[in-house]
């Protein structure tokens, strides 16, 4: 007790970073124990998929449809024919590839936010050795499920690239 009283300033000084580490850990890991998103989602992967217009797949009347894409002249857009469809099981944090025919049977909600208030966002990446800090950049193919203070990293089948190579098509109801 005497030691603590004598060195209280030193103990408080060393405790501040430790408490901040505990706070950061709690804010990252604790929500995962209590918040459980219910809705899985269908997503497509393919090179530079986010910038497609029109896109190969879309949702009409809660069903997946395949659109006819006419290759535009003078543009070197990548072929959308090699796009693949996947279902992300949010609870297990697993993905599996499915065929278009299987995907057509799903009842889909195409809104950005799921019915229970979650959305898929890009992650971020920062570099540097302390005390040097470099402004972070978006990590487009490192997706997170975000909402209600939860930030859960998703294991989607996305190839690493500086292009956005995945696209959420709809939440499965």
């Amino acid at each position: 007790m005497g030691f603590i009283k004598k060195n209280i300033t030193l103990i408080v000084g060393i405790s501040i970073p430790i408490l901040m580490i505990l706070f950061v850990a709690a804010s990252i890991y604790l929500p995962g124990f209590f918040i459980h998103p219910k809705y899985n989602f269908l997503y497509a992967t393919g090179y530079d998929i986010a910038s497609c217009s029109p896109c190969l797949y879309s949702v009409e009347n809660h069903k997946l449809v395949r659109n006819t894409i006419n290759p535009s002249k003078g543009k070197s857009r990548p072929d959308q024919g090699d796009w693949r469809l996947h279902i992300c099981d949010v609870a297990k944090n697993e993905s599996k590839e499915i065929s278009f025919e299987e995907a057509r049977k799903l009842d889909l909600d195409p809104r950005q936010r799921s019915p229970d208030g979650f959305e898929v966002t890009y992650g971020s990446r920062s570099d540097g050795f302390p005390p040097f800090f470099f402004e972070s950049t978006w990590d487009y193919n490192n997706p997170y499920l975000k909402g209600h203070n939860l930030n859960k990293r998703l294991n989607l089948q996305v190839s690493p690239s500086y292009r956005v190579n995945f696209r959420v098509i709809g939440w499965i109801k």
Partner: protein
Amino acid sequence: MATRSRALQYIRTLARQKTVTRDELLKAFDSGLGEELEEVPVHKLGVAEILYYLGGGIVFFGIAILLGQNWSTLSFETKFLATFGSGIASYVVGLIFSRDARTESVSSAFHLISALATPLGLWVVFDHAGFDANSYGIQCLISGAMLGSHLLSLAVFKKNLFIVFSILFGAWLFFSLTSWMVGGAALFRDWKFYMYRVLAAGTSFMLIGYAFSKNKRRAPLSGFFYSFGVFGFLAAALALGGWNHDKNVFWELVYPGLIFAILFLSVHTKAKAFLYWGTFFLMAYILKITSEHFSTGLGWPLALVIAGLAMIAAGYMALSIKKKYLYSE
């Protein structure tokens, strides 16, 4: 000797003024004889030691540049020996030099080389093993290993220098670990998260500096931790205030209070770092507020005049505080 003659002169003055009696002086003298004097070697950083540290830093940069320029041609063994090898060798040389009072101050420079070169050596090992050596996970391992080894050195050799390195490697571990835990999750904007961590580290450094100032053996370290702590704390709080469209009203309003608290602490702790950095950031805040809020309404010339006058007032206040409270008799 100067202290002795000054003390005798002071006693003569007191005797002339009849402020103390002969009996009181003899009593004080006798009680002093009975006390055991605690011999505490206090090292203040002199010009020679600054040059030693500079030399140590330059040696490290030499190694780093050698490696950088010949990265693709040097073998792993050469890179390992040039970094980790020289780090360990410097540590041993530092220990040998620290055993002799004549070479003790030089030993600090070798410990500095060791503290800089050894983590680079570990980085080379991780890179060779195929890991992303720049990732925060690997930075946690390197900083954790360095913190552990320096805490062990501190426990064995009880040198102040190992406290400094332990705290600096601890700070590196703190930043790396929190960055690693957050990963890519966009909890809040990265630079803000970084600034909150600098704020926490700055507060921690100031408290550690204060704790050291109360300990005779550690007192020379307090100035170092005060300087880095106050600078980090005030710089982070200023940055959190934001700029123009991205400003945070809370931090902008709280900031003057923080500065005056720091200036008050300079009186309480008698540490010049609080006064100098407090005044510097008060001036920075005046310039920021003037350019943000008054440059468009009043126009730049008038805003600059107001800012200049406010800065003169801040400088005058700092000088007054220094003269009145920080000069020891």
